[in-house]
């Protein structure tokens, strides 16, 4: 199963190679053309065989949120900063793997026993955190780690409960997994499967890829935030985990085309694919870069509601994932360009 393998790989913004090479191996014999570009995108093409064919780009990003080492202290601890948006409160006591050698470490913070009056219950700042790789001092730490090394969450893929999956990096290996399943598909248009780099640091891979591909239409396969737990009002849920594939009216980066949304909704209804609309306009994804490229490209996002997104224990529902895959496949069959 692609999703399990993909989430276990370590691919951070600017160093997506492990994910890219995994995907390359899986699809190189299926697609008509495949190449990597200078920013780290992987682009595969399935030709229609027609002259002057229209182009459709479907994309998912390979990178996951991560940490990188900014300082090694005299005591041998690693100070770090984030690559992509990570809430500091999800970091404390988490297991991480550092650098290409995947050196195990844990993120340390002051134990409750040692916290002073006033420190208890207050939010922790990233400056107070560090990665402990069990080194006895700076010299020993430097044998295993150097400045700039990345660190990823160490978290296993687990299926649990009523159809739920917990893993790190579901954002957006889940989209990559859905995209991989299009590798055998051929349509009336040229299909570009674009696995993008550096989404989490500002939609950078997609910015470049959209200009190179210059498609007539683009679909982004993504994950999106979900708040459907107790303590929140329904208006603040944003999306519901298990509520079907998520369609968006707008987010912070894109106001999605109403005509296309309507068409996608038509296809979802026709094939009885469960779908929901996102009820907040927070966040942004590769669509933000793509839809403004090349004089404007019609773009849509199909997302999967993800609880605890950008944490080591992100959670999705399998049915939503199946709905996302079904919707993108059916829509590509039906879309009129």
């Amino acid at each position: 199963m692609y999703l399990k393998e993909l989430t276990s790989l370590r691919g951070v913004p600017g160093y997506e190679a492990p994910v890219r090479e995994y995907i390359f191996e899986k699809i190189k014999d299926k697609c008509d053309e495949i190449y990597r570009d200078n920013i780290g995108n992987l682009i595969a093409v399935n030709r229609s065989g027609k002259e002057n064919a229209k182009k459709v780009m479907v994309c998912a990003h390979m990178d996951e949120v991560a940490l990188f080492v900014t300082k090694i202290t005299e005591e041998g601890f690693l100070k770090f900063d984030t690559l992509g948006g990570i809430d500091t409160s999800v970091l404390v006591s988490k297991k991480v793997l550092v650098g290409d050698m995947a050196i195990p470490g844990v993120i340390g913070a002051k134990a409750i026993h040692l916290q002073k009056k006033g420190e208890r219950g207050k939010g922790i700042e990233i400056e107070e955190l560090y990665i402990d790789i069990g080194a006895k001092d700076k010299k020993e730490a430097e044998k295993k780690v150097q400045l700039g090394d990345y660190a990823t969450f160490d978290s296993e893929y687990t299926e649990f409960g009523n159809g739920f999956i917990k893993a790190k990096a579901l954002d957006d290996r889940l989209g990559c997994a859905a995209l991989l399943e299009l590798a055998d598909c051929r349509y009336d248009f040229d299909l570009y499967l674009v696995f993008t780099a550096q989404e989490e640091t500002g939609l950078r891979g997609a910015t470049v890829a959209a200009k190179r591909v210059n498609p007539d239409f683009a679909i982004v396969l993504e994950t999106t935030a979900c708040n459907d737990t107790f303590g929140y009002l329904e208006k603040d849920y944003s999306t519901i985990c298990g509520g079907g594939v998520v369609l968006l009216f707008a987010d912070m980066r894109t106001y999605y085309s109403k005509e296309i949304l309507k068409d996608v909704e038509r296809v979802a209804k026709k094939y009885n694919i469960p779908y929901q609309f996102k009820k907040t306009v927070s966040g942004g994804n590769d669509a933000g870069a793509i839809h403004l490229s090349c004089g404007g490209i019609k773009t849509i996002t199909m997302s999967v509601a993800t609880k605890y997104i950008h944490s080591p224990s992100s959670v999705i529902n399998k049915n939503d994932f199946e709905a996302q895959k079904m919707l993108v496949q059916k829509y590509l069959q039906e879309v009129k360009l």
Partner: protein
Amino acid sequence: MELLKKLTQITSPSGNENAVCDFIENEIKDYVDEIYRDNLGNLIAHKKGSGARVMFDAHTDEIGILATFIEDNGYIRFANLGGVSPYNALYQRVKFTNGTDGVVTVDASRDDIMKNLKLSDLYIDIGAKDKEDAEKKVSIGDAAAFCGEFCDLGDKVVSKALDDRVACYCLIRIIKEMKSQKNDLYFVFASSEELGLRGAKAAAVSVNPEYAVALDVTATGDTLGKRKMAVRLGDGAAIKIKDNSILCHPYIKQFMIETCKKYDIPYQTEVLEFGGTDAGAIHLSGAGVATGAISIPTRYIHSPCEMADKGDIEAVINLSIKLIEEGFGE
């Protein structure tokens, strides 16, 4: 002023510019060589000519709201489209693009609500008796704009959406009243400026101009309060020097100032210490575009009662026409 009045009263919040584009297209289609819309909702009109490609830009969208959730009792929660102040929004009337009217009201369950008002405290009442009734009129994803009727105060006008329909008005008059041209001219009625200069960013790529001028409103320093800003209503067309999105090209700036002097057009120079305009997106397009901006000084921007001066509006139109007739890059 009838044309300006009509333009301001069209409901076209960001991302929903079709209605205002339909109106503008109808006004100018007989005056241009080609006219088309692109994938982002820009309306682009071309007046063919020789010489350098020049792009004039005004944005069609206005700030507004997007329905995100309908409560069981029929009240509508919303998100902002562009810079919507919760204090400005409270107790204003809104009109959805499908014509449904509503009022913005507040969930006053916090004691200090008025001290720290957030958009998430507000909701829209369309007079529905419950969710089912509300859903007959409004679906989530529907957009609305604020209401604010057009008033003629003599020298000045007041309305919602002068930002940036007053510049659309200028462009329409420029297209109709210009006598000659020395450039290949594109008039871009740009979408989604309030969401981050999005339409202009795409249009600048497809038009690929060598020179560009954006027309937009700018803030003023002539009201009570502490803001230090030299721009005043009634002092003429504001030739932009800088804002947060652009340092205007010295050639364009100089060309504008000299043209004002030559034809005795009242002008003032503008330094805006916040905000940005489409000029910011256009000048970074391609390998760079020599870009400037002419502003219509406007009080109370992003409120339902924006105020501008008729003389300033005429000055912006005159200056633009003279720039076109003199020619860019000559």
